[in-house]
């Protein structure tokens, strides 16, 4: 059965999205690389990563965009549509880091006749910001 989607009456500025947390294992990095046909050695070859002056296996920055999209879609429901995302990397994260994704409604725009919600999303490793995004998501109509 179809899960209900949020509508504009159920959303307000400052509303928070549920947090999600994950410790990224080496297996997670390999799984993401394989799923995206990306076999770059930075993500599984420790000696190679060290040769690039990195302290560990690097988490591919694009995974954070996928996490932001996952959280936005799971929050807004199946009839929502992500129109855009401005993803910025703020610091590097590595295998075995425990990352927490957060999100909040920044603004709502109904000027075009449909409701577009602008989310501010962030991923932290403890108190360090790893990545953020401004995500515009079109909400299901009433």
């Amino acid at each position, binding site marked *: 059965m179809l899960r209900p989607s949020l509508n504009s009456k159920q959303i307000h500025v400052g509303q928070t999205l549920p947090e999600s947390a994950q410790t990224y294992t080496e297996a*997670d990095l390999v799984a993401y690389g394989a*799923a995206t*046909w*990306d076999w*770059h050695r930075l993500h599984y070859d420790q000696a*190679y990563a060290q040769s690039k*002056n990195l302290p560990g296996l690097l988490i591919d920055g694009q*995974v954070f*965009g*996928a996490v932001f999209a996952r959280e936005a879609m799971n929050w807004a429901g199946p009839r929502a549509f992500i129109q855009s995302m401005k993803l910025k990397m703020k610091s590097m994260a590595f295998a075995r880091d425990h990352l927490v994704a957060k999100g909040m409604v920044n603004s709502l725009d109904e000027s075009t006749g449909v409701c577009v919600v602008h989310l501010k999303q962030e991923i932290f490793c403890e108190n360090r910001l790893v990545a953020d995004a401004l995500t515009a998501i079109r909400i299901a109509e009433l």
Partner: protein
Amino acid sequence: MDLLTPELLALIGKEAYYPAREPLSEASIRYFSLALRDDNPLYLDEAYAREAGYNGLIAQPTLVCETCQYAHAAPDADGYIGHEWHLNVPGCRMIRAGNDYTFMRPVLASDRISVKWTLESMVEKPASRGGTQLFVQSVATYIDQAHEIVAINTETLVFQPLVSHA
């Protein structure tokens, strides 16, 4: 300022095109769901996706911009098969600074997505830890079987001089 050479500047405007070799596919979408630990049925259950109003199983929003499925080449020395300009920036490592995604419509498992890359700009800027770093901006345009654009990805990479962490 010595990273941005005349040879690099001459590459601005260069394009590369990768025609789709097959549909994105339900398998690629399910694999991505497993890797992301995402059990949203929009990506796993075609009947559910149709009930939500789509014409079939859809892909996760950013998958089309993240996958190198368009590529068909042996891995390079770094193990990578996706698009690269193979810029010669000696003594630097390359890291991702950000991606600006624009999505026109949900991508279906049945879509055949071709990709066009364009090298838009290169700018050398001072680095916070001294010296300079080179910002390279490229645009990937994702095009379906009807020659319609389904997504645009403006990607910024930065070449940073390697420094010791001693």
